[in-house]
């Protein structure tokens, strides 16, 4: 399996070939890894770079469901948060090695996505968004009540990872640059996985469902199973981002589970451009940069970001990256 992204045919959403878009599509994984390598040197702070990494992965994972399968979930905070909490609890309360804790976080978040997906992908159309929101709020209230495990309203603390062993060497994880490049490996893995999924026959199937569910069903696809698988995969990647966030902050605030976090993921994806591979990452970068800049001026930066989001829905539904691609085609 040598770099499957190279040989892959362009997906449906990148149908119109032009030199720029074709090159971007063919080398999307190496190109995004290159961009990620440069990122910490381009941004004002290293902590912001790690945040872009975390939320970039969430948005890319989320877009697998929203942009490519066409399902608007308002509950992905649950999987992001589950990944973070499970990793934190595994390290802090059970003394599990960090890498094992990361795997547990991904598996736990993925299992939760499988359960919630099993319930929600049975619902049709507009119900889906409402039910994902409601079930994710259920997870929020469970975490609030189970305070002996999760720390309740105060959040989860006490699992600082200061040194990690990787490939036989000990790395100081408190150094922001080391932290960034270690977490970047996970991000690269996630990007590769998403790219691989999109290029597979399964990737074509989910786009077929997005374009016309009835036609996909008539063609013999098991729509419910395909949706559930897409939901679970998307949840797995968001859970990975959650574990990254837990390692980065050494703290899990209860708010990661609130539907405002789900909404933020939706906003990032749309700002950058759903239905494109890079879009969500660009959106996460744009959102966090706006937060960084506007929060210097006012503590009410959310009103500016929310207004910009409304304008995007009205006038730029393809997002920053999607619009850029559109212009590049001409």
């Amino acid at each position, binding site marked *: 399996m040598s770099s499957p992204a190279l040989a892959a045919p362009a997906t449906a959403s990148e149908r119109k070939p032009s030199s720029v878009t074709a090159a971007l599509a063919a080398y999307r994984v190496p190109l995004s890894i290159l961009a990620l390598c440069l990122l910490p040197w381009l941004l004002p702070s290293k902590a912001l770079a790690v945040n872009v990494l975390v939320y970039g992965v969430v948005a890319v994972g989320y877009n697998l469901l929203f942009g490519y399968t066409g399902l608007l979930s308002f509950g992905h905070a649950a999987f992001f948060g589950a990944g973070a909490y499970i990793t934190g609890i595994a390290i802090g309360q059970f003394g599990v090695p960090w890498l094992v804790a990361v795997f547990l976080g991904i598996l736990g978040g993925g299992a939760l996505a499988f359960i919630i997906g099993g319930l929600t992908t049975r619902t049709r159309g*507009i119900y889906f968004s409402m039910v994902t929101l409601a079930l994710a709020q259920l997870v929020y209230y469970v975490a609030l009540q189970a305070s002996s495990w999760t720390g309740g309203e105060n959040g989860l603390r006490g699992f600082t990872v200061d040194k990690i062993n990787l490939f036989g060497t000990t790395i100081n994880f408190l150094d922001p640059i080391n932290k960034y490049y270690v977490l970047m490996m996970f991000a690269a893995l996630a990007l590769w996985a998403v790219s691989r999924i999109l290029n597979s026959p399964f990737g074509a199937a989910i786009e077929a469902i997005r374009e016309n569910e009835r036609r996909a069903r008539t063609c013999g696809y098991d729509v419910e199973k395909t949706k559930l698988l897409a939901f679970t995969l998307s949840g797995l990647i968001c859970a990975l981002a959650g574990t990254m966030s837990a390692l980065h902050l050494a703290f899990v605030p209860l708010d990661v589970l609130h*539907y405002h976090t789900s909404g933020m993921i939706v906003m990032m994806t749309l700002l950058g451009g759903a239905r494109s591979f890079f879009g969500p990452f660009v959106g996460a970068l744009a959102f966090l940069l706006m937060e960084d800049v506007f929060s210097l001026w006012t503590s009410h930066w*959310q009103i500016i970001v929310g207004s910009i*989001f409304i304008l995007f829905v*009205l006038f730029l539904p393809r997002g920053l990256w999607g619009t850029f691609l559109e212009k590049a085609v001409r």
Partner: protein
Amino acid sequence: MDTELILMQLFSGVALGAILVITALGLSIIFGMLGVVNFAHGALFMVGAYAGLWVASLTGSFWWGLLVAPIMIGAFGMIIEFVLVRPLYGRSIDDPLLLTFGLGYVLVEAVRIIFGSDGIPFPTPPQLIGVVDLGVGFFPIYRLFVIGLVILVLLLLWLGLEKTRFGLIVRAGARDPTIMRVLGVDIGKVWLVVFGLGVGLAALGGVLAGPMRSVNPEMGSLVLAEAFVVTVIGGLGSLLGSIVAGLLVGIAISMTALFAPEMATIVMFALMAVVLLIRPQGLFGKLA
């Protein structure tokens, strides 16, 4: 456990449910007519509570707040429909949903700027303070008033929808807007009014909930989840469904609060999950 306590709790469940009914009904009416799920519904509920508080403090009377705030916020809802939601008809069904979500985000922050982030106490009107003996036990007058008012509003809504010419147009328009246009009805105006009505109901729910819950910028987020749970259980677009499910959820919450307080916020979601497993279209919903 004595029966009086259970009856009291049942009664406060009905009062809680009454507010849920009115809020979820607003959501359901807007969806039934326009096919839009209003994700700003919780935020508008909260804005309604603040508007009621503001008008009440200006005029010195709760009753003006109760009357004026829903009309004011309903008119604001019409502006929202006309300026923001209207350009999105004909696009993906997800677009109005995304837009109203962003709007909710903006409204919460705007209220924080104007009224501050801390909760504000919403005093119960002096005429409605105290308890009354109904023979089986003592019940708070304010909650009785809430139940009575909600029944009155439901009756008016039912009469308006079933017995008036405008109600006929609304019901027909929900079935087939194209035919209504062909028949020469300006369906755009109907959408405007229905959206305003739905938002006004959310605001009324907010004002009524004020003295029962604390008024703060975050109060809408739980309400949005509650309204979603009620409409999913009852069936989206079904008015009867909203009423039955709202009461069911209200009673379930307050009975759980009595027997297992730590489960009170969780029980309604569990109820929704069960309904989804057995009847994905909701109790009174029709299969698409």
